[in-house]
């Protein structure tokens, strides 16, 4: 067993040793909304509704890509990353803790209305898994792969499919940042040919494959395919746990806005990246878990009121993902709303005098409908 402990980074070791696991509220009122419990593994029901801090170095290591844009801006403004502990996340963590890794990987689908915190839940789970020492395969938004792609190459591996070198190389770079230590340890099991001259022998560390993909941008998508296949094959051995976290999984089975040079539309199955990812999301491997999120915001050709798995995935996607564990994410409960409001107040984000009164709070609650995104947007100009 490879011993990972809780250390991801040499620097973060120091932070962790300073973390205390006590949760006693201090005299200052700030602790009512916050918890000093920085390890998601120790989060439980009585942490619900509170915000916990992720040290900034960890953020850079674990989430090179994947946090929502507005949250990244908030991190920059407040100089700290505070994530709220919410019930769906706790539920997921409980499932993950109790799951049996010799069985095929269980699929979890996080769904909910727009702006209720699905991506943040996913990030919470990713943080937990990376703390526990899993190998995290985080796809920040699958919609980015099916729309607005400037370059499409014909795949050298399979004549029918199309490559997307830019997206693949960007993803490989971020993958490298988040899972560096694994890349040196996992070895390839097969020999791979990149074009006519270059090849990777059997038994070489995965880091070489990734380097190959980054150096030769043309073969980046194939490199990604190789990485995924290796990880899938080797996860059942038990040397590491694999978490596949995909945001916006409904992009894999919808339609694309891409067209070939002869203006014929491309279906997602014809893209290498999508094809490989679909294979990962199948539950024919064991030794890990698959956590996915549905997203209406980036989805193509779907009405804005659709949020259930059935509507957003379509028949094809639903059959492919079935069976899965659905996890709905609701709007803020009154307690969560209070803590979010208290956090904004404490960081002096709400500057308006009336925002500090009880009436102001009631008004904010009414106008935002306890929706996290609405509250965030409302509190911005105040």
């Amino acid at each position, binding site marked *: 067993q490879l011993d990972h402990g809780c250390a991801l980074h040499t620097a973060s070791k120091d932070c962790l040793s300073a973390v205390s696991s006590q949760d006693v509220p201090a005299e200052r009122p700030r602790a009512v909304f916050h918890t000093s419990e920085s390890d998601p593994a120790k989060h439980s029901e009585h942490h619900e509704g509170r915000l916990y801090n992720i040290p900034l170095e960890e953020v850079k290591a674990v989430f090179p890509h994947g946090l929502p844009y507005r949250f990244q801006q908030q991190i920059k403004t407040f100089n700290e990353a505070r994530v709220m502990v919410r019930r769906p996340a706790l539920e997921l963590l409980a499932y993950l803790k109790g799951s049996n890794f010799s069985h095929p990987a269980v699929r979890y689908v996080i769904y909910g209305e727009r702006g209720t915190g699905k991506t943040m839940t996913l990030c919470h789970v990713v943080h937990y898994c990376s703390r526990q020492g899993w190998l995290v395969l985080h796809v920040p938004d699958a919609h980015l792969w099916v729309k607005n792609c400037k370059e499409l190459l014909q795949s050298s591996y399979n004549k029918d499919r199309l490559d997307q070198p830019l997206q693949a190389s960007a993803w490989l770079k971020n993958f490298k940042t988040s899972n560096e230590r694994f890349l040196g340890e996992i070895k390839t099991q097969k020999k791979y040919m990149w074009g006519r001259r270059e090849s990777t022998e059997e038994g070489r560390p995965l880091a070489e494959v990734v380097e190959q993909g980054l150096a030769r941008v043309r073969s980046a998508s194939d490199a990604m395919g190789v990485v995924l296949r290796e990880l899938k094959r080797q996860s059942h051995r038990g040397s590491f746990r694999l978490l596949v976290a995909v945001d916006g999984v409904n992009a894999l089975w919808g339609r694309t806005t891409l067209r070939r040079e002869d203006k014929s539309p491309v279906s997602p199955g014809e893209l290498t990246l999508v094809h490989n990812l679909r294979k990962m999301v199948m539950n024919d491997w064991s030794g890990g878990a698959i956590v996915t999120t549905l997203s209406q915001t980036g989805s193509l050709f779907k009405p804005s009121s659709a949020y259930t798995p059935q509507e957003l995935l379509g028949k094809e996607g639903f059959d492919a993902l079935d069976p899965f564990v659905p996890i709905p994410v609701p709007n803020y409960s009154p307690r969560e709303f209070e803590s979010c409001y208290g956090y904004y107040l404490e960081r002096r984000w709400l500057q308006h005098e009336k925002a500090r009164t009880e*009436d102001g709070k*009631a*008004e904010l609650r*009414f*106008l935002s*409908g306890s929706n996290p995104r609405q509250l965030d947007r409302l509190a911005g100009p105040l």
Partner: protein
Amino acid sequence: QTLRLICTTTAVQRKNVGASGPEKYTEAFIKKQIEEFNLGKRHLANMMGEDPETFTQEDIDRAIAYLFPSGLFDKQARPMMKHPTEIFPEQRKIQWGEDGRPFHFLFYTGKQSYYSLMHETYEKLLNVEKYQDQLLAQGLPLQKEKRNLAGSRWLTKIELEEMLLEKLSDDDYSRFIQLLQKLVALPCADMEEKYIQKFSKEVPVQLQKVVIEPLQYDERGVAFSTGEGKRKTARATAVVYDNGTGKITVNGIDILHYFPVLQDREQLLFPFQFLDRIGKHDMVCTVSGGGRSAQAGAIRLASAKALRSFVTEKEVEFMRQAGLLTVDPRVKERKKPGQEGPRRKFTWKKR
């Protein structure tokens, strides 16, 4: 003191045709018109399949509106069939006989009916004074029942002209009214009550106090009340329940989804925020017509009206002053011919 007419309605400002000049229609002509009208009435009843004997004026109006539908706004311009006395205004008959001698003794004053009226009224005044003196002589107490002047008004100048079929001047009118007031002021004016009533009119009760409906209770025992509102072309009904959490549903959809724009949600928030009852009531509304803003305004009015039942009278007065209870009269203005829009004119070209 001169009485001046401060404000008159358009109906009252009509020209008084009857008092203008000598006869325009002969009596025989009017009689013939009346006969024709009755015949026509029977024919119309026959056409409509109703009984000619019991065909009233309302039935005639309905039948004419059905047979000759008209979209004109002015009711007077639409086709109508009424009794000739209503259509042809009353006019003075010839006031002198065959030998040229006038019938009335005051003919040569020029305003014979006005002066005869003044004489009559003064006669009544003198009678009342004489009666008063008699009572005083007998030592009996004078009756002091004041007429209720609050609910009545004197005839206007135009109405008086119509009655007398003569043109009057403002000065004449004011003198007549002063005389009437003097008559009414006397304690024993009750005996001339009937005469005075000929010149006074009831003023309709104008203060319609808005009735605030009491709270109703549904099966679970929760108090609720309904209200209706409109704005432009949108019509809304709102049911506000007590003991709620502040959840609002519009046409079965949550307000966050129905009104994605913040401005509309602020409109809905306003009545509750004004009364400091943001999280206390639930609301279920139905709305149709109009656009996004109009629907929000309509629901706002409906919810304010519904909240009246939950709130004290003083707060209702505050709401009314804040403008929460008034229907917004602004509607889309009509486009005029010769202009591009309601106000915008075509581009002016010098040549």
